[in-house]
């Protein structure tokens, strides 16, 4: 372990490998850092800011910040939990998130983050923006009401599927996911087996005709909070 990098997260000593980010080292050590846009097999995007941690007293996104010898990382502090609650609450009010009839409910990472952070209602006023739905594709639809602009579909389509079906257009409140075609999703090369369809954390890109197949009570986050799988690694990581 001569090339190991040693640092601390919330006072706990963590060993990582050179080149790893804080997120990667924390995941291996069984420490859950809340995240929304990050997926281990996609290029880190650093856009959602949910994984913000204090590194030697400065805020950094854990998914993009490389580890360094002796660095001090704060993760599960009340101040950072508040930052994360604020971000998630803003995402809820600036979209139209009707969990009660959404196919992704129970498996949705945005919803699960809100559950884990203990949000009962956002403190910000709802904006009720006008967003569109594109159901032109025979097997897949986009509901932009639910899109949180995480960029996962953009990365997955570009880097894993090699198709670049999705891209961001617009700025600020007008930013949205566009498709690589004159108008509609059906005019793209998107296929139901594409990774871009699998990676959406919310119910914005969904397969048709498979909604509500898993009953309430058996869905991913019905009983266990998001991040439990990572935290379950902690005991194993201790032994190594």
């Amino acid at each position, binding site marked *: 372990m001569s090339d190991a990098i040693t640092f601390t997260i919330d006072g706990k000593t963590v060993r990582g490998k050179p080149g790893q980010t804080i997120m990667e080292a924390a995941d291996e050590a069984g420490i859950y850092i809340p995240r929304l846009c990050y997926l281990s097999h996609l290029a880190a995007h650093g856009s959602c800011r949910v994984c913000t941690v204090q590194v030697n007293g400065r805020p950094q996104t854990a998914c993009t910040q490389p580890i360094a010898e002796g660095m001090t990382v704060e993760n599960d502090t009340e101040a950072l939990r508040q930052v994360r609650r604020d971000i998630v609450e803003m995402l*809820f009010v600036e979209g*139209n*998130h*009707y*969990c*009660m*009839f*959404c196919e992704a*409910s*129970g498996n949705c990472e945005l*919803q699960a983050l*809100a*559950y*884990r952070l*203990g949000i*009962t*209602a956002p403190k910000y*006023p*709802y904006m*009720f*923006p*006008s*967003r569109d739905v594109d159901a032109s594709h025979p097997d897949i639809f986009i509901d932009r009401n639910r899109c949180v602009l995480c960029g996962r579909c953009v990365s997955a389509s570009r880097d894993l599927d090699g198709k670049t079906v999705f891209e961001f257009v617009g700025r600020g409140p007008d930013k949205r996911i566009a498709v690589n075609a004159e108008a509609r999703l059906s005019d793209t090369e998107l296929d139901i087996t594409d990774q871009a369809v699998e990676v959406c954390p919310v119910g914005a890109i969904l397969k048709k005709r498979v909604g509500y197949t898993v009953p*309430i009570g058996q869905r991913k986050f*019905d*009983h266990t*909070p998001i991040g439990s799988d990572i935290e379950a690694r902690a005991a194993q990581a201790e032994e190594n």
Partner: protein
Amino acid sequence: MAKPKVATTSLAGCFGCHMSILDIDERILDLIELVDFDKSPVDDIKTFTGRCAIGLIEGGCSNDENVHVLQDFRKHCDVLIALGDCATMGGIPAMRNTLPLKECLDEAYLNGPTVYNPDRCIPNDAELPLLLDKVYPVQHVVKIDYFLPGCPPSADTIWQTLVALLNNKPLDLPYELIKYD
């Protein structure tokens, strides 16, 4: 000492949250040991008879009557609880918020595929509550003390909340009782 009073109402809701109140089953017998119901569809009392400890609000504000009832609840209740997703975020009725009100009325009374309306009349009687431009979550209108999301919130969520608040205990619901669906 007189029992504390609980009032409930359904604004722009479907009464599903009230069904969930009834879904506490036989615990409703324990509940009436703890509290008296004041203005509520449960006992059909139409106007407040006095000060209430807790007001449960189902549904958001879709018309002026909803706003008046909600303000009346704020005036008479020590603690107001937004019960369910419609109170908290507008819910299904709020789906009209991205459309102009006129478009909604035209679809409902003139252009809808199953509309039969030979006089082409959109109801406009002074007795009818005036529709608001949008459906407003209740916290956009009055101060709300607690939110119980869910469609509906489960009976256990409602029960544990009432028991905690009536016994002056902090409200600390377990993970499985805060759900948005």
